[in-house]
């Protein structure tokens, strides 16, 4: 090829390309993830079915605790648990997807792009938030149909949505970080264990004052207790700031930490 030809090729290349910006890449990656719900529903359905099962089973099993200085309405107490649990598993799904794509080689395509690195994290994060809306809305509808009361009104829905989305993001970033380090589906059990350990060692099932022994001690300091308090703020009583700030702070801190964990993992993959 002649020097003129080379220069022309370079000019064609340069004229075709704009500046690779973060937001369009984030949107494309999120869109892809959402579209894949319809293409591979079997991978998504459990994250909807499981929370619905959870709220029905728990509210039925623990209905007898009503009035025993626990809660007035079992559906209202367990709906936030089911929503937050469902959101956490949607977050885990982001890690599973990353695992699959790293193993299949598709992730190399993303790493080879000149797109801003942060977009590879924010894309799955946006997708997680969008996908988490499905179990959120489904469980809320089931809970309301099952007799849940929401004394906090619209603010109660908002605080639960905030708690769910924050939890989804924490688990998404945490699991992406694991995926970048393990680079295989071996990370899957570790990802799932994270949800159970953080949720069920908090006030997932019963109020803190009913817990005893080591479980009480752990739940008292577990930040997820604050997140559950935030999620239930408008579902068991009126929304009050003292019930919310701890959860908001916990979400802010753990979203930041998990994002940092994922970011460090991603930077290890991209020289």
């Amino acid at each position, binding site marked *: 090829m002649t020097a003129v030809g080379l220069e022309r090729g370079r000019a064609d290349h340069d004229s075709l*390309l704009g500046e690779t910006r973060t937001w369009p*890449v984030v949107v494309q*990656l999120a869109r*892809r993830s959402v579209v894949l719900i319809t293409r591979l529903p079997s991978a998504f359905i459990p994250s909807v079915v499981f929370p619905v099962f959870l709220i029905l089973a728990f509210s039925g099993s623990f209905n007898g605790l009503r009035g025993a200085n626990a809660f007035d309405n079992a559906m209202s107490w367990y709906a936030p648990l089911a929503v937050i649990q469902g959101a956490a598993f949607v977050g885990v799904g982001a890690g599973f997807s990353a695992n699959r794509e790293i193993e299949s080689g598709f992730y*190399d*395509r993303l790493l*080879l*792009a000149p797109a801003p690195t942060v977009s590879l994290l924010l894309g799955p994060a946006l997708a997680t938030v969008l996908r988490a809306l499905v179990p959120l809305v489904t469980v809320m509808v089931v809970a309301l149909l099952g007799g849940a009361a929401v004394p906090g009104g619209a603010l109660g829905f908002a605080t639960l949505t905030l708690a769910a989305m924050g939890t989804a993001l924490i688990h998404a970033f945490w699991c992406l970080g694991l995926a970048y380090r393990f680079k295989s589906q071996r990370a899957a059990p570790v990802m799932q264990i994270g949800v159970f350990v953080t949720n069920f060692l908090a006030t997932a099932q019963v109020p803190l004052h009913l817990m005893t022994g080591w479980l009480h001690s752990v739940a008292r300091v577990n930040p997820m207790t604050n997140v559950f308090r935030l999620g239930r703020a408008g579902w068991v009583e009126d929304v009050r700031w003292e019930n919310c700030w701890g959860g908001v702070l916990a979400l802010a801190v753990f979203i930041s930490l998990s994002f940092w964990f994922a970011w460090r993992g991603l930077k290890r993959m991209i020289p």
Partner: protein
Amino acid sequence: MSNLPIEASGLVRRFGTFVAVDHVDLAVEPGEVFGFLGPNGAGKSTTVRMLTTLLTPSEGSARVAGFDVVRDAAKVRRAIGVALQDAAIDPLMTGNELLRLQATLQGIPRAAAASRGAELLERVGLTAAADKRVKAYSGGMRRRLDLALALIHQPRVLFLDEPTTGLDPTSRIALWEEVRYLNRGLGTTVLLTTQYLEEADQLAGRIAIIDGGRIVREGRPAELKAQVGSPTLRVEVEANGEQDKAAAVLAGFGEARPAADGVLAVGLDGGAASMADVVRALDDVGITVASMELHTPTLDDVFADATGRRLEGAAGDGDGDDGAG
């Protein structure tokens, strides 16, 4: 270092104590198709992964499109197109969706991406399948889509890592044609890894043979083959009694070489060009030739000469006796 499209100096990659790539030097000229030939596990893909910024070299340095692969990795990624081994394409997405995603990743504006995508799909013959999910594509269609994805941003340098592995002969030849077009028609510099001798012979202007992480031979295929030795002419004569007479004639053209019963073989000192003289000489003494076959050294012979082993899979893929290339 100069401003070549691809250049590497003392490139090393270790995985623990295992040295996958061992002091590899490369210099690929603008507009060249450079073949990287070697068996599985030779270090081809590891080298490509370093050159395409997917792996950090343990030692040495490399520049691609004028940029350092470590310090200016983002600029390298912007300048190159890559079709990695196994055509890792999401089977749940359609060809069109993948092209749109790739265009966004490369920063191509939406309008330009649409026309560019349509143009590429047409060129690789996938327009009709553009809205079908990739899981319905054949292996050849996936490879062609992978190539289109690698070309969406008109890269100056294209890396093809074993682009035809697992393809049927028709798909393989179609992909070769596309690579030729990209190189000759558009002037794209191509680095191609392959374990197929014929592929390297057909496509590459220059090749490097890699084995055990080291480059053991480098040059133009014809030159490398010439270095191995002279071509062998195998002659079968019509009448059994004329074999001695024929052997005497052939001795004038080079050293006798081992051959099957009833066949005479000679290494032609004058190369393939002296074959016509051999025919004339045999005719002059009245010998009728039943068959005549010229075996020029193949790249497998070059590989064997360099390593003492035959290249894996060589028998089925590049064992040509006609000295193609």
